[in-house]
């Protein structure tokens, strides 16, 4: 008897790209709003960005059903944390929680490629980048998703900061100002939209700084 093959897959890829950039006192998290399946566009207006805590925002591309489940889980865990500790979770704490949450599904992974952006307890910008099973790293900037191979080399060119592993250590946070970083992100998505079919429609930008959270939108090519 021949081995039985599965006639369906639990996963799908809804495409899209996400970017996060950390600054000295701000953090920019951005993602496009196109949701696709194969060659079809399901919607032009889907937000991939989720606010997890006051100073912590996550953008995820991949399979949006898994992303939604992950966001719900993290929101629930955050609520429990607030009940138990009477304060919001810091961004580095949320970063480790996300890593563990992803790893608990090591044998049936969340098909979700995440970047976490926020301010640490000193108000300095921090970005954490993940693979689908939870390995994570604090970086100065990152991109994930279908356009990441197009976006990342450009960010490396503009923002490449000394590795945190160097001894003597050098600061990894980008020297750009907040408005320069937002402009950079808009440029990056405009370029990625040209060459990646899954990226486009609209760009959602979330900016975190000492004053709070601000949202900006920019139209992208819809073809």
């Amino acid at each position, binding site marked *: 008897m021949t*081995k*039985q*093959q*599965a006639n369906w*897959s*639990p*996963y799908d890829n809804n495409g899209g790209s996400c970017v996060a950039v950390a600054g000295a006192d701000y953090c920019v998290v951005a993602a496009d709003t196109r949701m696709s399946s194969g060659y079809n566009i399901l919607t032009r207006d889907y937000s991939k960005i989720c606010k997890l805590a006051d100073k912590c925002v996550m953008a995820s591309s991949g399979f949006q059903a898994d992303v939604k489940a992950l966001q719900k*889980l993290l929101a*629930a*865990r955050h609520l*429990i944390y607030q009940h*138990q500790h009477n304060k919001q979770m810091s961004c580095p704490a949320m970063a480790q929680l996300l*890593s*563990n*949450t*992803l*790893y*608990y*599904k*090591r*044998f*049936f*992974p969340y*098909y979700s490629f995440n970047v976490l952006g926020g301010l640490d307890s000193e108000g300095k910008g921090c970005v954490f*980048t993940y*693979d*689908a*099973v*939870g*390995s*994570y*790293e604090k*970086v100065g900037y990152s991109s994930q998703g279908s356009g990441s*191979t197009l976006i990342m080399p450009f960010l490396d060119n503009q923002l490449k900061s000394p*590795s*945190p*592993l*160097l*001894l003597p*250590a050098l600061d990894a946070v980008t020297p750009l100002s907040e408005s320069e970083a937002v402009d950079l992100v808009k440029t990056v998505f405009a370029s990625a939209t040209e060459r990646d079919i899954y990226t486009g429609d609209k760009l959602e930008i979330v900016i975190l700084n000492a004053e709070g959270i601000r949202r900006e939108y920019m139209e992208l090519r819809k073809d």
Partner: protein
Amino acid sequence: MKLDTSGLESTAPFFGSSHELNDGFSAVPSFEIPDTIDFDGFQKEAVQMVKPAKGTTTLAFIFKEGVMVAADSRASMGGYISSQSVKKIIEINPYMLGTMAGGAADCQFWHRNLGIKCRLHELANKSRISVTGASKLLANILFSYRGMGLSVGTMIAGWDETGPGLYYVDSEGGRLKGTRFSVGSGSPYAYGVLDNGYRYDMSIEEAAELARRAIYHATFRDAASGGVASVYYVGPNGWKKLSGDDVGELHYEYYPVLPSTVEQEMVEVAAA
């Protein structure tokens, strides 16, 4: 007297829902398993789809003054370099280090888990855990997940009452005590340099330079290794990071570009 046998408990994952929302740290995390007929086929597919980050060179050796541990910092997802700044030397506690090779998430998670277990041991027994004990804890966990697709090739290096200790532990369930190891896709190249230059009675500086060179040569020849070569030393007072050098810069340090004499010089032809 109740003995602590949690290290011996079967850590095979349970079927049914996981209890992530429960408070506190359970002895072993339980994992959800997909409800498929063909578990191995599904795991293979999932790994190909998800492409967890891997590819590496790590090494560690014991010498007269203690243990030297070194690693590169590149993570690759298929052919794409997903990061050039991965921390592959994990600080389990102030006197023990673990290295990461294989699946990045697997190594990070289980080393963190090992650090927690070591701390619990300290609290329960009022003394530090030995390198032998720590490596055994990790090896037992990995053995229980044998065949499930974890990819971990790690070395546990530390200094305890018996002196310097070094163990190699992998996801097949293997655990080896030794004095010289290199793990990862770049390990053959690192072994070449390491075995050639090794002497038991080296000074700390000589041993650090040997470790650095071995990593550099591995990053030179192995596409999946690169980034920053980190070197750590573990001595009687714990570990200390000795250096972190970009391997691109190390190349020009070891092989500086010398102006060479030319025999025939090409002259620009005037445009017609």
